């Protein structure tokens, strides 16, 4: 299910969702300042560190994701940030639409996530850096 099919699903979800976007001010440092990291993602254009709050993520319980966006190139513009999650193996997303707010320069907080099934979820961070789309995903198993 990984590979092309998963990308297609993510693309479909991206197309369907409209909320949870924001224009960013890049973070000066990509550090998890408010607790241990849940995950760190790298891309040629950006690094991203994120943490779930509360941690660990529990099936059926709402949570938030706080994350830092750190472009590799100083001064790069970052916008259209969006957070979503899906279960590619089950071919469904969340029943809830997170809303994104900027907590500090380069730091964002997505509220209102809820994973309603055990198994492997895929968190999606999407943004545009200097006009180019960037998509970062991470698989997270919850029981």
């Amino acid at each position, binding site marked *: 299910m990984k590979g092309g099919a998963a990308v297609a699903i993510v693309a479909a979800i991206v197309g*369907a969702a409209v909320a949870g976007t924001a224009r960013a001010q890049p973070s000066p440092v990509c550090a998890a300042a408010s607790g241990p990291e849940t995950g760190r993602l790298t891309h040629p254009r950006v690094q991203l560190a994120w943490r779930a709050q509360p941690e660990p993520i529990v*099936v059926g319980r709402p949570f938030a994701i706080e994350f830092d966006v750190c472009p590799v190139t100083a001064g790069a513009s970052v916008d259209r940030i969006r957070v979503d999650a899906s279960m590619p193996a089950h071919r469904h997303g*969340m029943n*809830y639409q997170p809303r994104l707010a900027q907590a500090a320069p380069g730091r964002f907080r997505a*509220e*209102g996530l809820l994973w309603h*099934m055990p198994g492997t979820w895929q968190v999606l961070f999407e943004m545009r850096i200097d006009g180019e789309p960037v998509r970062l995903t991470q698989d997270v198993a919850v029981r």
Partner: protein
Amino acid sequence: MAHRPPARAAASAAALVVLLAGAAAGSFAIGASGTADPPGMAGTIGAHDGDLTAEDVDAIVRHGPWPVAFEPDRSNRASGRPAAVALGRRLFVDTGLARTGTVSCASCHRPELGFTDGRARGVGIEGLDRNTPSLLDARLQHWFGWDGGSDSLWAFNVRPLLDPREMGADAVRVARRVAAEPGLACLYREAFGAPPGAAPADRVLVDAAKALAAFVETLDSGRTVFDDFRDALARGEPPAQAASAAGYPADATRGLRLFVGRGRCNLCHLGPQFSNGEFHDIGRPFMAAPGRPDPGRLGGIRAVLADPLNLLGAHSDDASRATAVRTRHVAATHRNFGEFKVPTLRGLSRTAPYMHDGSLSTLRDVLRHYSELDVDRLHSDGEALLVPLRLTPRETDELLAFLATLSTPSTARGSVAAGSAELPGTVGAADSLGTVGAADSPRTAAGRASGEACPTGP
């Protein structure tokens, strides 16, 4: 009934993937994790007499502990207050609230039937479109009704009061009834600190619904033999020893293993409640009547977001609105059409018939539905969860044996036993909560004691 060696579990899991891959051709089946017998042993899951792997045990333990500790509903200032429980108890059986004076909440939510009515579809003043849901353990839910059209238990209670097909009341009628009947007025004053006549009718209606919620919160299903078995496993007892100590039947153990294994039933029927509290399309018909579809969850989302009594509104007593996070973020999509809530499986033996429209008479019918699932009835762009289980007759019997244990009262000493509380008024001793396995919690007893200070009903 010994622990299965991990090596065999791994081999079984690999075999299952192969089995599903073969079965998936031409359907929308997906690869799955889990354990099952190798292909050559399909249908002989009971050959190992309930043999449970460590993975099985881990999955089973996640269905407890039970009961779940009571936490007051922050959106309802009456939650957990004995006077409010007493008022709600009295309102629950009061036919004077209904426009016709002929029906009460207890007319459709009968204790001896797990607070359902035994009908395919409910009947209030008129016939309804959906099966009457059980009220047992309702305090643990977040969405109420088959469509989740209410986001709190108290807002859910307003719906049948006002629905012209159910009780057909309005706020003025409810307020007048509460003010005019001495017992209700006395209990209202005790519960809310002021006489009902001092508040506007809309406020009295919502308060009455909050008192009803406080009462319904006391309707806990009792501990079962499943809980005894589960707790023994959680203590680390070997499955055979745990089953013996709990009196847990061997066929139920095999059915349970199928439930958390090949059946993957616990993806949706999860946790102590055996429900994830969310909504799914399982391929059941969604026509309320010829030419009139039931939109299910799609209609429920629209209803709750438009409801002035939702948790984002002024009637919620949770100033922080922390209880409203689901309401704030719930999103409607077209796939929600025809989705209905995943019901709890506790107390299932008493709540026939089944499904949102009561279209399946017995649990055997329900299992046949999942066994012979018509995948063409599922949303083509929906989730890829369900595949026909192709249960053998023996597997069906074993699953039924397991489900029965979710309704069989615990016999363990010291467990929360079935109570002896009775509903007041016309419902009568035959409907005592004790006969249906509802736990007589301290909150129930406190509610009764509080109610003794006020006049009894008409």
